[in-house]
């Protein structure tokens, strides 16, 4: 499988079909894989693929410095590919100018990451080629079990939970930087005329920031779980995103990154949207 991947990448670089491969590298077999950018055919040996390849590489496609490297090929898991679909819908990438190498994935992490236990995209669906086989079967439900259990708490308990969690936030914005769909050139959190988001790492500012981060991903988040993975404070940010993913599914029968033909729910509307909560 890994030889196949390297051969494919070598071929693409040799033939000049792409200028850079966005893939995974690894320092030691135990360590996590990290993103690497291979521009020379002789360097394809650095590429790896295993269950430590957590990162969603789609995030690099919209970066200026990566774009400067030329036409990219990207290695994606099924879940990462959903981000590509959203980026395409939002005209952030040109699929024609992008070579997508899919890797069938049984899940990452040992024990498996939470998103992998409820994964229903083990095989990328729109990739130019898909390497390997996935033995794990797609799970159709259970995506919102954790959220459902959380919502059994009373609102006051939930508030206490978030106050505890978000008091650890240091406003490093790693959640924003790693997110493939947080691609704004200027983030609202960095604007100070006027200051919308309190910049201090106090509860006030942290709540404001996390609310913005989550809501700007409403109907867009593909639950790749990168925000929670990179959070140095270990805050379960996925829970906020899941809330909105569930709301999108419940109210608008929409899941981000699944069907490229479907109209995204934000920026559109329907006359039938529910409004029983409006006075």
């Amino acid at each position, binding site marked *: 499988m890994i030889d196949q991947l390297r051969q494919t990448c070598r071929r693409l670089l040799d033939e000049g079909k792409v200028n850079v491969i966005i893939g995974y590298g690894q320092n030691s077999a135990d360590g996590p894989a990290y993103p690497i950018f291979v521009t020379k055919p002789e360097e394809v040996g650095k590429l790896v693929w295993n269950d430590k390849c957590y990162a969603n590489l789609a995030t690099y496609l919209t970066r200026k410095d990566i774009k400067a490297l030329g036409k990219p090929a990207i290695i994606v898991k099924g879940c990462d590919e959903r981000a590509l679909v959203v980026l395409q819908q939002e005209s952030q990438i040109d699929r024609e100018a992008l070579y997508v190498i899919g890797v069938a994935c049984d899940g990452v992490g040992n024990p498996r990451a939470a998103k992998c236990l409820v994964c229903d995209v083990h095989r990328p669906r729109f990739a130019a080629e898909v390497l390997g086989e996935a033995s794990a079967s797609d799970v159709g439900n259970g995506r919102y079990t954790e959220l459902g259990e959380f919502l059994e708490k009373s609102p*006051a308990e939930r*508030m206490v939970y978030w106050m505890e969690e978000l008091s650890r936030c240091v406003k490093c914005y790693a959640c924003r930087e790693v997110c493939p769909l947080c691609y704004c050139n200027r983030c609202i959190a960095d604007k100070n005329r006027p200051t919308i988001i309190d910049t201090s790492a106090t509860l006030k500012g942290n709540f404001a920031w996390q609310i913005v981060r989550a809501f700007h991903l409403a109907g867009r988040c593909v639950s790749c779980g990168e925000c929670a993975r990179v959070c140095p404070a270990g805050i379960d940010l996925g829970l906020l995103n899941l809330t909105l993913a569930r709301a999108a599914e419940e*109210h608008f029968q929409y899941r981000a990154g699944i069907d490229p033909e479907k109209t995204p729910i934000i920026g559109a509307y329907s006359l039938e949207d529910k409004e029983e909560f409006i006075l």
Partner: protein
Amino acid sequence: MSEVGVFKPKIIAYVCNWCTYLGADLAGTNRLEYPSNVRIIRLPCTGRIDFNLIIKALESGADAVLVSGCHPGDCHYTSGNYHARRRWILFRELLETLGIEMERVHFAWISAAEGRKFQQTITEITEHTRKLGPYTAYKKLCEAGV
């Protein structure tokens, strides 16, 4: 009017320029009395009313927030309120998960002809918020240091 020791809730109302603001105006010209607890902030359209403003209001010590605009089909900009409605549906869910008291965040359609509805809505929200008491949870959160 002011009674000592009685809780006077602070209510922020974000209203659209074309319907609810005129509704409030109508309530005024008709001499319909409504509680003075409400601070009206006029914006061009409900489609403009960023969810951040709701948070901002709570941060600034509001005990309740009202967002109000034109009825569906009446938007001056054709579809601003439809876009807003869709966002509210999602935003409410997020507030729910965060444990923010949903009884303090209100949404309404009040047209330029509904001076009475404006009066009633404000009165009801004020009465309800008075029963709930001050929103200490969010105030405490905002005062917490590093």
